[in-house]
Structure formats: C-alpha cells, structure tokens
C-alpha cells in the first residue's frame, strides 16, 4: 500500500488520482454495458448481481486454469448469459424490466455467493499490470502508476461503442430500436433481436468489469466486493446522458469518490471513516437529483425509456 504520509497533502491527491484510475474500471465496464442496453430501450437494473457473478467467475476460472485472461473471458461469458436471461424474461409481454432487474440482483448475488463459498485459495492468478512508475522512488507515485490493462480496454470499449453508435448501421439500428421501436419495426429493423443482443453484450461488458474486482490487487473474493458499484454505474449512465464518452469521464469521477475514504484514512484522517466510505453513494444520489427532472425531458434519453418514465 502507498504511504502518502511522506509527501503530506500531495499524498492524498496522488492516492486519489491512482484510486480514481483503479476504481473507475468496474464503473467503466458496467456503465458502458448499461449504456448499450439502454440505447436499445431496455433497462437492466440487475447489473449489481451480474457484476458479482463476473467477479466470482473470473476468480474461479483464473484459479482453476491458472490464466487470468481466461478468467476475464469466463466472466464475460457467464455475465452475458445472465444478460440473455434478463433479455429473455423482459421480452415477454407485460413483464416489467425494472422489477426483473431487482430479481436479477438477488439471483445473481445469490448464485455468486453460492459458488464463491467453496473458494479455498485466498488469491487467484492476477492480471499483469502496466508498471508505468518504475522511475519514481516515491512509493505513492509508483503505486498510483501501476495500471491494470483493463483500464485501457475499458477506454477502448468506450471509443468503439461511440464509433458504433455514431458511424455504423448497426449502431443506428440499435438507437432506432431504443428511440422509436414502432417506427423501427415498420422499417424492417428486428427490434427484439437488437434488444436481446444489446442486453446480452451489455451484461458481458459488466462481467469484464467484475473480473477487475477479483483479478487486480488485492485480488481476493469476498461477498462485499462490489459494494453497490454495479448499481451506481447504472445511475451514472443517466448522469452521462447515454453517451459512451461521458460514461468514461463519469467513471473516473466515481472511481475518485470511491478512493476518498481509503485515501484519507491512509493519510491519517480516521474520523467519520464510514461516512467518507459512503461518499460514492451520496455522490450518486446528488448527481441523480441534479441531473433528473420531473418533466423527464432529459437530453439524450432513448425515447422508449422516456415514454415509460424510467429515467
């Protein structure tokens, strides 16, 4: 762990910046996944359960196979299956996707805890890190610059998603599905197919975010490992106005908020520890209050979501 005491207040800032990069990764993947899902007109509130299943599967496969990359892939596959389940259930007429999301949280976390109980290894093989700070003798700076490759994968995923939405026929069709399903259907766009595919890929992305939780330092599996990050990432999409690029920026902000408690604690500020740890939740709530409005004329909201008042 960094010892920011040695450089005082700067230590807190550096620990925060490092924490923001580290902590942003699950937010990035989940918010990009949710962004894709919601662009198709579907809401998946079950991301918290899906993130946990991703984290658990990654640990399991990495531990058994010895390959952390295989673990990350398994996380994507398992979480994708859960997304497919959510998509299938919510395609049934009269099934409410908000309620189905709540059920997915309980189902996903239940499954993850069920299979996670058997883990005996304290740690699974970890993903390699990019050690960009080898030149610095200061441990805080060095530690902040040990960056997971998933950080760059996440940035790339955001850029790719942005490109797909803006520049490709597939992206246009997904957006049409989410904005005006009736019109899209009459144009011959297979709306059900697009919703199912978007929800499945969205959940698979969230699973990769989950793999970061168990395959990066400290790399242990515990039932509290996600701590609502899947949920906050869903809220973050509203704040990011359904734009993949803004999802990336907002994820960094949330990662930083999450690092606030631990950074202050390691700098010797120990009062109100639990309240500082709650700062991401408070930030999310504040951000939602600020960015929503009763009239629900949110810029960028997919039309199908707006009409159901689901923003």
């Amino acid at each position, binding site marked *: 762990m960094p010892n920011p005491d040695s450089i005082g207040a700067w230590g807190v800032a550096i620990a925060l910046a490092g924490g923001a990069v580290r902590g942003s990764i699950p937010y990035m993947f989940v918010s990009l996944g949710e962004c894709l899902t919601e662009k198709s007109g579907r809401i998946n509130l079950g991301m918290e359960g899906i993130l946990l299943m991703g984290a658990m599967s990654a640990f399991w496969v990495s531990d058994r196979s010895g390959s952390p990359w295989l673990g990350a892939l398994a996380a994507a596959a398992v979480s994708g299956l859960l997304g497919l389940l959510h998509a299938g259930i919510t395609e049934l007429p009269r099934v409410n996707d908000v*309620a189905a999301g709540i059920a997915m949280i309980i189902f996903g976390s*239940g499954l993850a805890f069920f299979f996670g109980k058997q883990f005996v290894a304290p740690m699974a093989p970890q993903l390699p890190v990019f050690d960009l700070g080898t030149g610095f003798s200061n441990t805080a700076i060095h530690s902040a610059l040990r960056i997971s490759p998933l950080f760059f994968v996440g940035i790339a995923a955001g850029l790719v998603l942005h490109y797909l939405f803006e520049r490709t026929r597939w992206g246009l069709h997904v957006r049409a599905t989410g904005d005006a399903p009736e019109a899209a259907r009459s144009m011959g766009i297979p709306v059900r197919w697009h919703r199912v595919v978007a929800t499945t890929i969205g959940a698979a992305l969230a699973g990769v975010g989950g793999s970061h939780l168990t395959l990066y330092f400290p790399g242990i599996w515990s039932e509290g490992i996600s701590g609502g990050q899947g949920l906050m990432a869903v809220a973050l999409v509203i704040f990011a106005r359904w734009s993949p690029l803004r999802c990336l920026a907002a994820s960094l902000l949330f990662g930083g908020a999450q690092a606030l408690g631990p950074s202050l604690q390691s700098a010797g500020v120990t009062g109100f520890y639990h*309240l500082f740890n709650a700062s991401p939740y408070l930030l999310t709530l504040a951000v939602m209050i600020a960015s929503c409005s009763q009239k629900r004329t949110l810029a960028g909201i997919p039309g199908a979501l707006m009409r159901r008042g689901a923003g």
Partner: protein
Amino acid sequence: MNLSKDGAGFETVLIPLAAVAAGTLIFALFCEWAGASAVGVFRSIYKAGFGSWFSWQNSLVRAAPLMLCGLATALPARVGIITVGNEGAFVIGGLAATAAGLATAPAQPLICLSAMAVAGMVAGGAWIALAAGLQHYRGVNAVISSLLLNYIGLAILLQMVEGPMRDPASLNFPATFAIPETHQLGRIAGSRVHDGLLFGVIACLLAWFLLEKTVWGMKAKVVGGNPRTAKLVGLPLGQIILTAGFLGGACAGLAGMVEVAAIHSRASQSISAGYGYVGILVAFLARHSPLRVLIVSVVLGAVVASGGILQRDHDLPDATIAVFEGIVFLTILASETLYGRKFSLAVLARNAAHAES
C-alpha cells in the same frame, strides 16, 4: 405498469402458485446438479420451518419482520412507486429506536417502548418517503435511489455505533449501550415468539383496511393505476405518494425497532440481517396485497429459518436460500405475462365451443 391489480378469481391464485411451483422445480434441478438430494433439501426446509412447535416459533419470529418489510415495498407499489429501500429503513428505524430507547430508559417500560416505536417509524417513514418523493418530484428512479439509501443507512448505522453512540465496553464488536432488560418487548403467551408478530399482523390488517375500505385507499388505487387520470380529477398526487412511501417506510422502521427491542437490546451491525431484502420478494410474491403479504411472510419465514439446516445436513452454503429466492422471484415476474393470455385462452375455448354447437 400492472403492479396494482388485485382482482379476485382463479387467475390471481393459480398463476402465482404455478410460478412458485415452476421456480421450486428449477431449484430442485439446481440442488441435484450441485450434488444434493432435492427431496432431502425440501424435507429439511419443511422440517426447519414447520416440523415442530419449536420450528413453527422459529418461522414466526422471522415472519414478523418480513411482514413489516414486505409492506414497505407493497404500500408504495400500490401508488406506482417501486422502492426497495427496506433494509435501509430497517436499520435507520432500529438506530432511531435505540436512541429513543436510551433517552427514555428511566421511564416506564411502556413509555420507553412507545417512544422507540414512534422514533423507528418516523425515521423509517421519512427514509422511504424521501425515495418516493424524489421519484415523484424529480423523476429520480426510486429503485436506484432507495438501494443507494440502503448503503447510506448502513454507513450511518456503523458510524453512530462506532462513534457517538458507542458503548466503550464493546471492544471487538462495536455496539451502543443496551436498553434495560426490563424494557424488552414481551413474548406472546406460552411461546418464544415476541410481540413483533402482533405488530406485523396488525400492520397488514390495517394496510388492507386502508387500501380496500377507505376513501384514501380508493384514491391511492387511482394514482397507482393511472396517474394522468388522478391528476385530471384533481387528486393531490404528491401528497398521496409521500403518504404511501411514509407508511411503507414506517413499517420497515418498526421492524427495525422490533429487532432491537425484542432481540438485540442494542444497535450494532448485526441488526442488518437482510430481512429488508427478503421483504422485497415477499411484496412481489404477494403482488403487493397486504393480506397476501401476511401469508407469504410465514412461508418465507420458514425458508429463511432453514438456512442453517441446509448447511449442516446437506453441506450446502447458506446462500442456497438466496438462489432459491432469486429463482422464484424470476419465475413470479415471468408469470406476469400469463395474466392477459390466460383470459384470452378462456375466450378462445368459449369461442371454439360456440363454433362447435
């Protein structure tokens, strides 16, 4: 959203039963796949829940907070607001009740317990009313805000328990000072079941009366069924939604008070035992009808009580129960799709009969 239908008839009984049966079957396959005997697992759950007077009492002790937490989701759902902040309202209610109990400890037990109940209900009520109000006035999704409030509620509990309200004698496991033993919530005559069960039953009956037999209940139904109509006929939407949120939250807060006053005598991390989350399932299984919340809570109380036995007898982790709950939750939601269809099947059959004659 078709959440507030509460019609009579076979449909509303048969479809949920079929959905639970389907969920149970899937869970049975899951158990077999996990290497346990499904029949054995169900026998254990039954034995742990209803096998003897002793296990009945165990189930009823757990049914009490489930009834109150079930109402916490069911009541706001009837006005069209889905909230899942039960756990947060539960711990905040428990914390407020502890504070009130410690402040009034020198008084008569009845006064002290009343103060605890009122404090718990007001705190829990405000907690859920906040989420309901944010959705109504600001368009903030109440599912997300109320789940966030669960985390915030737990953080406040931990902060108070480890900070200002900490009993210095609680070294390894931070907790508040204890409410005097003389002020504990009583037991129902001849049993280990505490009076919290009465609170739960009375709350369900009162909620049923309020929704089905009063003018307010009628207004609430209009708001839940069609907000636009409600606005057109001049109903005070905000007021009705805030009231439903407050009443629901008050139930969860009262459950937190019961947990402190009947079981722990003090607030600590262990009052957050997950009843709030199971309460969500209770409400959805009951399709947000207070009387069905009563029945479903007893059944799920038994299921919750069986967690330990599954671990001992079948070597299954305690999360097995959560898997069961998740599967049943999903099948219940999927069964929503059958409601319109079953009716149309009946119409089809009748038409076919007409055609033949």
